[in-house]
């Protein structure tokens, strides 16, 4: 019988900042584990005639070994190339022909597959996902074909874009542990080296029901959906527990700094990145608020100071990268023509010192909390993103109910917390700076 999480979910509601509105603002769901270990989450919602199915596999580029970088993502492409009862290309075809949308993505921590369809196509969605989980058809020809597609993806996103290589180099410079040190897209050499045996082994190891989470959201009848899920997924055999990679990252002891040149760039650029903490930890939530103060929109300190007032940068933004393992607070600054990186850095560090010295303003804390609330509502509005959040929180932090509790974790952050994490993590010895300078080829024409 489904183990209900609704009771637990209700408990935490009392902690929530009561909105004056009567609109429900939480996601009710149930979770069941099938005999073969597949975790199944159902969140029925009949407000739109749509279903979203999301399958998350507990594997990402962090699980790749040396010599096989890019493999998790290459494998994700193979999942669209057919299985015992689904032809090559048929997955795309059936979903789009029925008016649905779909995709698959690979990140360092997770690989996911999802489709959103008119509600009367629920059985099709389940059939398509189950068939490829059970019986992927792997051939040399298909592998070679998708190797090309992935290599083109690499060219499109990295090799042919200004600063494309910088993204990749940043990971290499920032991390010591190979799991996060190498890029998800992988190297051309490793992509060329991937063999059909590798594909086969990867499938058996990681694409097992006991290594996956199925989340279904939308307009369905729960008993009928559960019956279909059992019918299609339960016969898929369990596999031995996959090996887990050690994500432990050694303490950084000194600033890391490197300058690379980029023939496609026109303006100098810098990544300034501070190593932080593993995700879903109290400090993570304080870091999210810190991020909002530093680079959340045009009211943020960095935009106001470095872009608007000092006119040093053409653009400045940031991102608090949350991972299963050690994450980071990342700042990305594109310089204005003729401005110096060192002046930008000096101004940036002054802003950081100010946050370490003086508590943030009350309005800044309120901004972070209100924008978190708004962002949360936006994230749970669509069936697809609701399914995605359930699956991702389960894979990454083994807690699907984070979909309902995360907002309160941000609500609990105080100005003192923000100051504390700023002091603790935004330190020089914890910093990685990657500077990209335009190479002569691109600037010659200006």
């Amino acid at each position, binding site marked *: 019988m489904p183990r209900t999480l609704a009771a637990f979910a209700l408990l935490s509601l009392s902690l929530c900042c009561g909105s004056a509105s009567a609109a429900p603002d939480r996601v009710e769901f149930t979770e069941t584990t099938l005999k073969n270990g597949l975790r199944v989450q159902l969140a029925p919602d009949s407000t739109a005639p749509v279903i979203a199915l999301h399958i998350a596999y507990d594997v990402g580029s962090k699980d790749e070994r040396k010599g096989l970088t890019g493999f998790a993502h290459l494998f994700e492409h193979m999942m669209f190339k057919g299985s015992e009862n689904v032809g090559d290309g048929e997955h795309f075809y059936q979903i789009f022909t029925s008016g649905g949308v779909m995709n698959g993505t690979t990140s360092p921590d997770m690989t996911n597959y999802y489709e959103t369809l008119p509600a009367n196509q629920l059985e099709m969605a389940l059939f398509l996902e189950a068939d490829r989980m059970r019986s992927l058809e792997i051939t040399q020809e298909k592998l070679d074909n998708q190797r090309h597609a992935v290599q*083109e993806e690499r060219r499109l996103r990295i090799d042919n874009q200004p600063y494309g290589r910088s993204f990749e180099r940043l990971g290499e410079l920032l991390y010591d542990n190979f799991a996060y040190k190498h890029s998800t897209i992988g190297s051309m050499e490793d992509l060329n080296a991937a063999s059909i045996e590798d594909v086969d082994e990867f499938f058996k190891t990681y694409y097992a029901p006991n290594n996956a989470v199925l989340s279904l959201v939308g307009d369905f009848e729960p008993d009928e959906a559960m019956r279909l899920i059992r019918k299609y997924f339960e016969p898929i055999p369990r596999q031995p527990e996959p090996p887990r990679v050690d994500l432990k990252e050694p303490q950084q002891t000194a600033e890391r700094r490197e300058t690379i040149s980029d023939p*496609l760039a026109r303006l100098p650029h810098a990544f300034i990145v501070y190593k932080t903490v593993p995700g879903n930890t109290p400090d993570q939530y304080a870091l999210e608020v810190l991020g909002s103060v530093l680079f959340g929109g045009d009211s943020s300190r960095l935009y106001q100071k470095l872009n608007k007032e000092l006119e040093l940068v053409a653009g400045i933004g940031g991102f608090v990268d949350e991972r299963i393992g050690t994450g980071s607070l990342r700042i990305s600054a594109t310089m204005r023509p003729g401005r110096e990186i060192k002046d930008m850095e000096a101004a940036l560090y002054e802003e950081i010192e100010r946050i370490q010295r003086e508590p943030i303003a009350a309005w800044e804390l309120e901004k972070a909390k209100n924008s978190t609330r708004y962002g949360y509502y936006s994230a749970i509005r669509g069936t697809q993103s609701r399914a995605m959040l359930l699956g991702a929180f389960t894979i990454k932090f083994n807690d699907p109910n984070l979909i309902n509790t995360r907002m309160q974790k941000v609500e609990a952050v105080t100005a003192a917390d923000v100051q504390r994490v700023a002091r603790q993590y935004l330190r020089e010895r914890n910093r990685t700076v990657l500077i990209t300078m335009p190479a002569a080829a691109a600037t010659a024409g200006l």
Partner: protein
Amino acid sequence: MTKNLKWIVYTAALVPLLCLGQTPAAPGQAEPESISQVELKGKVPVNPETLRVKLPRPQEAVLSNGLRVYLLEDRKLPTFAMYFVVKGGGLADPPDKRGVAMVTASLLREGTKERTSREIAEQLATLGSSMSASASPSSGESGISVSGLSDNLDATLAIVADVLRHPTFPQTELDKFKARFASQLQYQRSLPGFIAQEQFLSAIYGEHPGSLIVPPEDAIAALTSKDLAAYHARIYRPNNTFLLAHGDVSLKDLTAKLERALGGWEKGAIPDTKLPDLSPPTKARVFIVDRPGSVQTSLRIGALGIERKSEDYFAMVVTNHILGGGPASRLFMNLREDKGYTYGASSTFTGSTFPGFVAAVTDVRTEVTEGAMRELMKELERLAKEPVGKSELENAKRALVGRFALSLDSPQALLSNLATQKIYGFPDDYWDTYPQHIDAITAKDIQRVAQKYYAPDRLQFVAVGDAGAVREILEQYGTVASPSGSKE
């Protein structure tokens, strides 16, 4: 704002680079299909029935000052979204003041009689509200989009009203904007997709504002605070504007709040916008932009298309869907799935009050440019020469009609459809009858549309990449012309 490098996620299918919102707007990624290279095993339990849905009709009201309000009330979550559509975007720019619509919109938030730029930014952010305004040089409207928590609707509206009604366009802020804009443009012009699109539009539209993604730099440099104030006074009038709203509010409450905030906004004489003349190219031309360091060729192949109200519209929707509407379309299946030339290949079309364009788009590694061109041209020719097969056509229609169900899950898609209906003056049942129009399209219609708009002698070819390596390949498709801005 904080325009910057995007963080990358790797995905199985590429969202078309020229995502210009064909209707019906559907949320999510890409769409369509084709039957050409797909292997169908006949085992998948597909429900043959297309779920026919009715899109919600908005509640309507008119404020005392003439502002029309359309509301999709939705109590699911305590949020709201509003979209003000002001008629007169870049198309209303006087020819000697190109860019005035865009810069006016960009400067709205940079200071009012009551608030400085910084105060506006901080006050909105504190509420958890967002407000942005934009007008592209080729758009017929300026758009102001506002969203936030419904608890903070009143406080947000007070700021929005101030920004809409009393912007002061401070000279210092204008100077700062110009410098910011120029430096951001440098970044954009290092992106192959941006370069290719600028070149392609310039090839299709020449001097017409349809050619502009951004206004000419010298035109922006010449704009004064007075120009913006004059444009604002002329165009930003309640009787020249309508408001689309969605969310956790009743029409009665919303109207009362709007009357309070915007009731004093004065009507004005509605200006006529005269569309500039359009003289499309009369022969096939090739534009090659050398981009040192490129490892791919970014290709755009297309021609002048149709207006949004064209009688060819529905035939074009189906044609585009079959040719390159998504990961199961002919272009994708051929160039990516069969040949492995590219990560994505797609087609697109646009169209507003003036004719849009049709285009096939792909980025391929330099070495396979020749093969990619051959296959692209083969697919265009096939569409014009051979009638589309029965099942391919039927399935395209199923896909296009089936997508409506998904729009009910996306306020953005519903608002976008509503905007289209109001902007072009379509009847209230426009989206209800849309499926019938799609159903009526025949294989002959598709062939006719393909022959007409993708005729080889009107195609413009743009290639951005290693010019030395691709010049000979491209030359055979048309007269080689100098790219615009080729001083670079």
